[in-house]
């Protein structure tokens, strides 16, 4: 059975599934004789201490693994555990009803759970989950049950779960984990980020895969295509094993190019950079031969938490990334919330057209408190490396000016406070709207570089909702319209003497590398694992060839013709396997 999901971390793996299913706890109910009440209360208090020890242990592990900047959910868990309401109410019930601790805890949990479910606030309702998690831990400890963990895996397995929490991956016996397959999640969910940092294949958003497979059954996951195959027939299995073998050979070959520049046969050089979400991912730069971070997304910080991250917390994360990357540069993109992702803490109204609504720089300009806090943190981090700042979703020159005005204000504040920052910090605008693209010449005069966010640009240029399957056919990266937009942006930048990067999905798509090269793009920023392949393509052609191919491709009147031409003229896969 083949299930389609979202590719979260590349690679192909075949193995036995380990299905993580939450077990239902049966709560016993029995009377406690009066003279044993004190012992029962002690048993309850012991379970609380045991739980506290567990939580502190996991908290330390998670911190060690993901860095201090990872949202700390365990402090909240500990506060709930130590809560007088939980503790006293449970003890009260044990004493008054002469009943066992498990039953008393369950009663209290149910009551508090009811109160929470009535709250309208989305964020608080989500916290009800923390509360349930803590309650479950206490009950397990009372029942003397071992928590089902990934800490002791006997075999090498592929973890199949509804979703993986940081507490679960932190305890995971990593040497025995071959890959992840989860019911829910997207490219930025914890499971996906974890898999990429462990460089194991992962497919997320597989719907109900946990219901369709049992532990021990064989499963294939293809992290390139984003599919999982349960109990594959022999022929299918062989096909995947073959693909895996080819990829391994290719990887070995490309790894030799790690230190080589992305240079065409006639000496034209472009920079290949990495897109990252967590400061720790800076470690991947060296492994894949990235020349810096072309896009450091900062939304991750703001999601899954109850408050906005403080200046200090952001500063520490940006500083870490800047220092670790040095002497390579990093480009920090300011908050790009909205559209399909919003922080639970920011009470934002529901919109009919969120992608055309209050998002990214529009939101930041209306919330200088949040925006300036982030700019301060970025500026302060700028002395620790080569840092640039980039604004997302600029639609007009006026927005850019307003953002720059805030940046100047923050610089003045910092000067007054005698805090250091780099005077040379570069400013970039993301060109993702047709309005910015068509006025790129105006915007170019007031920034140091452009970065084209192609995912949004394609969506806005084609007026296609990326998520709507009925019109998915219109999402065409290689359409004449999109290509003309990119050309116009790059040319406008070059005329004003600034460089243009491309940082959307297409930057890592080897089918489009030649045309981006031919269009004159100066820098490509992508998921770091895609860098070696893109580099190989660039190294196998001359800039002259790429320009000619691009010119011809630009003359076609349909996406189909462009795509077919690009495939036929220089087959990317052949270039990949070509020996140097």
């Amino acid at each position, binding site marked *: 059975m083949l299930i389609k999901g979202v590719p979260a971390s590349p690679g192909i793996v075949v193995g036995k599934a380990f299905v993580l299913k939450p077990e239902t706890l049966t709560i016993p109910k029995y009377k406690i004789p009066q003279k044993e009440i004190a012992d029962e209360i002690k048993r309850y208090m012991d379970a609380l201490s045991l739980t506290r020890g567990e939580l502190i242990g996991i908290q330390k592990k998670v911190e060690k693994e993901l860095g201090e900047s990872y949202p700390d959910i365990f*402090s*909240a868990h500990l*506060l*709930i555990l130590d*809560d*007088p*309401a*939980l503790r006293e109410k449970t003890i009260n019930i044990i004493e008054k009803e002469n009943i066992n601790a498990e039953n008393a805890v369950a009663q209290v949990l149910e009551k*508090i759970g009811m*109160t*929470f479910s009535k*709250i*309208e*606030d989305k*964020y*608080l309702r989500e*916290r009800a989950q*923390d*509360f349930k998690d803590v309650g479950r831990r206490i009950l397990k400890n009372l029942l003397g049950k071992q928590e089902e963990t990934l800490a002791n895996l006997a075999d090498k397995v592929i973890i199949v779960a509804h979703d993986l929490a940081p507490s679960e991956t932190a305890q995971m016996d990593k040497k025995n984990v071959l890959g992840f397959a989860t019911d829910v999640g997207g490219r930025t969910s914890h499971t996906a980020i974890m898999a990429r940092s462990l460089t194991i294949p992962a497919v997320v958003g597989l719907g109900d895969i946990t219901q369709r497979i049992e532990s021990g059954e064989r499963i294939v996951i293809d992290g390139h295509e984003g599919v999982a195959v349960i109990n594959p027939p022999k022929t299918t299995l062989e096909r995947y094993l073959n693909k895996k073998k080819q990829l391994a050979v290719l990887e070995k070959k490309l790894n030799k190019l790690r230190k080589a520049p992305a240079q065409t046969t006639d000496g034209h050089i472009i920079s290949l950079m990495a897109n990252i979400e967590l400061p720790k991912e800076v470690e991947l730069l060296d492994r894949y031969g990235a020349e810096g971070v072309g896009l450091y997304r900062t939304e991750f910080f703001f999601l899954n*938490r*109850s*408050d*906005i991250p*403080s200046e200090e917390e952001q500063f520490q994360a940006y500083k870490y990334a800047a220092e670790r990357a040095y002497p390579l540069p990093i480009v920090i993109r300011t908050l790009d919330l909205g559209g399909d992702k919003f922080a639970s*803490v920011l*009470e934002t109204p529901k919109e009919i057209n969120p992608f055309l609504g209050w998002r990214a720089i529009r939101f930041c300009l209306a919330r200088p*408190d949040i925006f300036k806090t982030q700019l301060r943190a970025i500026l302060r981090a700028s002395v620790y490396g080569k840092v640039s700042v980039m604004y997302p979703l600029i639609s007009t020159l006026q927005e850019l000016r307003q953002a720059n005005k805030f940046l100047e204000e923050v610089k003045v504040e910092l000067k007054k406070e005698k805090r250091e920052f780099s005077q040379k910090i570069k400013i970039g605008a993301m060109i993702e709207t047709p309005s910015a693209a068509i006025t790129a010449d105006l915007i170019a005069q007031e920034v140091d570089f452009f970065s084209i966010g192609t995912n949004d640009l394609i969506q806005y240029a084609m007026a296609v909702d990326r998520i709507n399957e009925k019109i998915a056919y219109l999402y065409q990266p290689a359409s004449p319209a999109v290509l003309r937009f990119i050309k116009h942006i790059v040319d406008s930048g070059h005329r004003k003497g600034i460089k243009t990067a491309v940082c959307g999905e297409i930057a890592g798509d080897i089918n489009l590398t030649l045309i981006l090269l031919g269009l004159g793009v100066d820098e490509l920023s992508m998921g770091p694992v895609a860098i070696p392949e893109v580099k190989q393509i660039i190294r196998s052609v001359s800039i002259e060839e790429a320009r000619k191919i691009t010119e011809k491709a630009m003359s076609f009147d349909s996406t189909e013709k462009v795509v077919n031409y690009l495939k036929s003229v220089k087959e990317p896969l052949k270039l990949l396997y070509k020996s140097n």
Partner: protein
Amino acid sequence: MIEKNLKIKHKWGLHARPAGKFIRLAAKFKSEIYLEKDGEKANGKSILEILSLALEYGSSVKVIVDGKDEKDALKTIENFLLQEEE
């Protein structure tokens, strides 16, 4: 026992993280501390009770403090609820 009515100015209301800070602050005092909103009373030292009040920016609350260090406690709590920054 002293009481005081005030409006929460804390930018994020009392969501989990600020609520956590509030609890830790309240725990420093010997006095009993309660917050009351719309007739519902919550123990200021219980994260569960405070969260279930769903206090937001602009909510009106009554702070009730009872104990030896009630004056200090009230002052500290007032400062926390009225501060705009974290």
